[in-house]
């Protein structure tokens, strides 16, 4: 993607290789271990504009989390360059931390036994937020994320959905311009997922926060983001809007007909081989139909197809 002045994240030919020790037996393996190189991220390049909401998706082991960890200053790359808010993350860890927020769905930044409000107060101290600014900021976030009742409760007593709302608030206290969300809806039930998605999007729109979100749930991508970057085996294989993704990969239509006996029949039509109209004509001739629905394949299937093509 072409570099623009408003790019807040710039990634150029980023590579991350890990050295994994091979399992070995005997004395030789103990003193002369053998290693194999794993390329987790392989020369990926992309730019993200300020305020963009980008889904970063790929199968397990594709390199999503590794990329996010390099951009949020946790990991050093093997080669390549990245700039977040004009700063090289791994060289400007402290300065960058004021501009970014991180939410790792599998990990917590809240103190397990203490009331949530104590963790927030500590984070405010860590980020050097003065008391007045902290109270004002917290009041706004508490209202937006509806967590007033949760503040006096210890983290250990919260449900996963409640905890995730508090985690996101914790990562937003210092008003970061960029929010990295690594699987924020992992393990949540359908209702909790929906709440989290809505809140993330609402906050991003209100404060023009740039989002980079990884998830295995395609609904997270569709409902929160406007652009999608897909990586597989460490390589970037798609980078465009969600609308463009659907358009490029919609070679199938699902037709569901309900017959007069109440039976529901589902047909998959490959539009490259047969037009939808022809398929509909055939179905009408074959059955006594009372209802017809024509649908695009679910996003999940589109993604699966992209992975398979790769």
């Amino acid at each position, binding site marked *: 993607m072409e570099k623009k002045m408003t790019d807040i994240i710039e990634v150029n030919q980023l590579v991350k290789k890990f050295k994994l020790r091979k399992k070995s037996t005997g004395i030789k393996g103990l003193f002369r271990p053998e290693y194999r190189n794993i390329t987790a991220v392989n020369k990926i390049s992309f730019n993200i504009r300020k305020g963009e909401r980008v889904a970063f998706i790929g199968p397990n082991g594709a390199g999503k989390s590794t990329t996010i960890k390099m951009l949020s200053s*946790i990991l050093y790359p093997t080669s390549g360059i990245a700039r977040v808010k004009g700063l090289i993350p791994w060289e400007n860890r402290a300065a960058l931390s004021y501009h970014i927020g991180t939410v790792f769905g599998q990990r917590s*930044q809240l103190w397990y036994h203490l009331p949530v409000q104590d963790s927030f*107060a500590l984070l405010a101290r*860590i980020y050097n937020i003065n008391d007045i600014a902290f109270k004002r900021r917290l009041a706004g976030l508490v209202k937006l994320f509806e967590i007033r009742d949760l503040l006096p409760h210890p983290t250990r007593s919260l449900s996963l959905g409640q905890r995730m709302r508090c985690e996101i608030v914790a990562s937003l206290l210092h008003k970061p311009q960029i929010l990295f969300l690594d699987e924020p809806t992992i393990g949540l039930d359908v209702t909790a997922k929906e709440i989290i998605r809505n809140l993330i999007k609402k906050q991003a729109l209100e404060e023009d926060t740039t989002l980079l979100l990884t998830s295995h749930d395609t609904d997270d991508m569709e409902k929160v983001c406007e652009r999608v970057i897909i990586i597989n085996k460490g390589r970037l294989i798609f980078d465009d809007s969600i609308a463009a993704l659907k358009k490029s990969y919609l070679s199938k239509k699902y037709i569901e007909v309900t017959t007069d006996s109440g039976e529901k029949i589902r047909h998959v039509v490959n539009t490259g081989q047969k037009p939808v109209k022809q398929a509909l004509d055939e179905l009408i001739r074959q059955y006594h139909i009372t209802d017809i629905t024509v649908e695009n394949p679910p996003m999940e299937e589109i993604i699966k197809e992209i992975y398979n093509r790769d």
Partner: protein
Amino acid sequence: MGAKFVSFCRLFLLIQKNHAKTAFLSKSDAFVNVLMMVVNNFSFIFMWWVIFENKGSINGWSFGEMALLFAVMNNAFAFFALFARGSQTLPEYIGNGSLDNFLTTPRNTLFMISVSESTVANWGDFITGFAMFFLSGYVSWNSFLLMLLSSFCAAIVTYAFRLMVSCLAFWAEDTQRLGDNIFMAFLTFAGQPASIFTGWYKILFLTVIPSGFISLYPVEIIKNFSWSALGWLLLGSFGFLFLSIKVFKFGLRRYTSGNRFGIR
């Protein structure tokens, strides 16, 4: 610089307040833990008292010197365990990827890791340490101040050694137990009369396993103050601290993170 230092102190105090709040969620548990630590320490000291009662002295050390050693050692360990125990948990942070949390804050990563853990039971070490100082027979204001300074330096050596051992986790997997065993050896040697280690043993315990900086110089300084002994103690403790920070920074570049499920 001044504002930065004040901000750093305020953060340190708030973290300690949170540790205290966590520890005193069950007040009775906390008090029993502290009491048991004192009992545990004194049972070990009692064994040495019996030895000295029977032997009189070991290479010039009597129970008075041993009591000074226990004063310094217990206070040093209390400083370490109450205010910098996170260095001991570092292999776990590296193994499960929770080190990530410390890397995304604007504060010094090593400071945040070090203060992330505290064990309330180790207030019992302070109680033991001060009690042993008063039982040593070397009680004066001068000795008291030197004992505090020596304990602080010994705490720095303890912290630095533990940090270096913990940093093994940047190079190898599952080093928590190995690190704990090496650290236990360090503490065991620190709790012996320094007079029994001479020649090559003395060099060994001032370099590879620097327990000599707990047992040798502090007792010497409190008993017969000399600037050279104080100089060696300061040089050794801050030298090891400098080295441990270098090792940590070098290891951090190898950090590969992880994704184990968990909570702080």
